[in-house]
């Protein structure tokens, strides 16, 4: 079963369009949404949350219609945006008091425990919290009503590696329950390489790739060669290439086939960042 299904979603703006976006977030998995700034990641998340309306296509969350069954769906979702959205004058106990009255399933003990584990001070106002602490608070608030789905929009951006690592561990804990799923957008691809099960790559409003992360990392590779060897590569065997002072680098979607065909060339594994970079910046042969 899929937690989220997007079917041929289209959204037109004056200067940007999301076109025919389709992907699914399987239950029990972490889906990473990657793409450069302005690619359409946040627009996609806003569409799922019914903050904006799609021009065409359908979205189902937990098998329910995301507009008609909005309240029922949102009772079971925890959302973390790229900034903490609570008033700066509040303290932890105020946040708990607010959320307790918003979610039927709010768990005070769980919130206190998460706040304690995250080292959040109960006696300080949020305006005294660091950015990392604010994000941890948002994550604690999102988790403490025991959601089945977490949606995170650039939640780890701008945080130091230690805090990011702590937060990623929390996500991995959350996903231990097979009913739980996470949709996380980020341009820090190394984070997603650590935790994501699936990756959806959006570029200029279109889904370029949406598949298992392991499959992507296993299948994609980078051919490294000089100008003479590069001339021998069939255009159909590579996605795109980049020329540098040392020669050519070309991204292939089938590393093993390329290794077999071009045995004399060096082929390295491709990271998510490589796949993103070559797709966005690379040239077509």
């Amino acid at each position: 079963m899929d937690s989220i299904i997007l079917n041929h979603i289209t959204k037109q703006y004056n200067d940007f369009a999301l076109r025919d976006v389709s992907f699914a977030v399987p239950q029990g998995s972490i889906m990473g949404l990657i793409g450069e700034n302005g690619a359409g990641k946040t627009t996609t998340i806003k569409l799922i949350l019914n903050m904006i309306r799609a021009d065409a296509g359908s979205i189902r969350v937990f098998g329910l219609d995301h507009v008609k069954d909005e309240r029922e769906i949102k009772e079971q979702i925890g959302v973390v945006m790229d900034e903490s959205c609570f008033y700066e004058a509040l303290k932890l106990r105020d946040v708990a008091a607010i959320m307790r009255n918003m979610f039927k399933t709010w768990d005070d003990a769980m919130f206190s425990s998460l706040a304690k584990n995250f080292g959040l001070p109960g006696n300080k106002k949020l305006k005294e919290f660091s950015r990392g602490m604010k994000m941890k608070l948002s994550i604690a608030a999102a988790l403490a009503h025991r959601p089945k789905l977490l949606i995170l929009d650039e939640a780890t951006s701008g945080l130091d590696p230690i805090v990011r690592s702590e937060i990623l561990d929390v996500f991995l804990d959350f996903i231990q329950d097979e009913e739980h799923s996470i949709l996380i957008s980020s341009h820090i691809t190394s984070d997603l390489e650590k935790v994501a099960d699936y990756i959806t790559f959006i570029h200029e409003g279109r889904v370029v790739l949406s598949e298992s992360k392991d499959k992507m990392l296993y299948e994609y590779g980078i051919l490294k060669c000089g100008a003479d060897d590069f001339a021998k590569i069939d255009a159909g065997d590579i996605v795109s290439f980049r020329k540098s002072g040392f020669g050519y680098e070309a991204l292939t979607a089938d590393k093993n086939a390329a290794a077999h065909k071009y045995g004399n060339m060096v082929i390295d594994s491709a990271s998510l960042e490589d796949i993103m970079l070559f797709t966005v910046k690379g040239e077509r042969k």
Partner: protein
Amino acid sequence: MKGLLVKEFLGTKSFFRIYIFIIAICLIPMIATGDGEFSAGFATGICTFIGGMMCFTSFAYDASSRWDKFVLTLPYTRRQIVGSKYAFSLIMVGIGMGIGFALNLVFAAARVATIDMEVAAVMAMLVSFAFLFISIVIPLIYKFGVEKSRIVVIIIFLVPFMAFIAISNTMESGVEGGFAGSLQSMLPLLMWLLPLIGVAALAVSYQIAVRVYRNKEV
């Protein structure tokens, strides 16, 4: 909707301290002159005004903390979110007016002011104006945002105020009894009519705000 109201009150609780400051200011003319009539009227007016202004403050806080986006991820319909803003604004007007009236009672008990029909008429008018203010401000903010609405609200309230002054001057110079006299004779009618207009404006305003917010993309 309870959670949304809890958020409003906890988020703006520091603002309640301003009432203590205002009460202190209201006492100054009374202490200076020994007459509490001005202080009583001033307290009722300013406390109600601040109550009405709290809806603006609440929207401004929402925008600065980005709560206006986050609230749409919570299990509420847009109608409920709009409803919570009206409920909070009306409660704040009630609290403001309640504080003002409580001061009137204290002054009356201290025999420095009296509570009569004039006080009731002033309160009826104040609450009506607060209703009208809320009715105009909330749909405007949903449509144009806090910053743009601030300018529009100043214009909306400045134009009638200037017109009032102009008409008042003209009538006082040209008509026997002056504008004040005319207003005096209309007072009983206005006392009943204005609150009704205020309530009707709120009902229409709420429907408009819901419609605007439903179509809004955040």
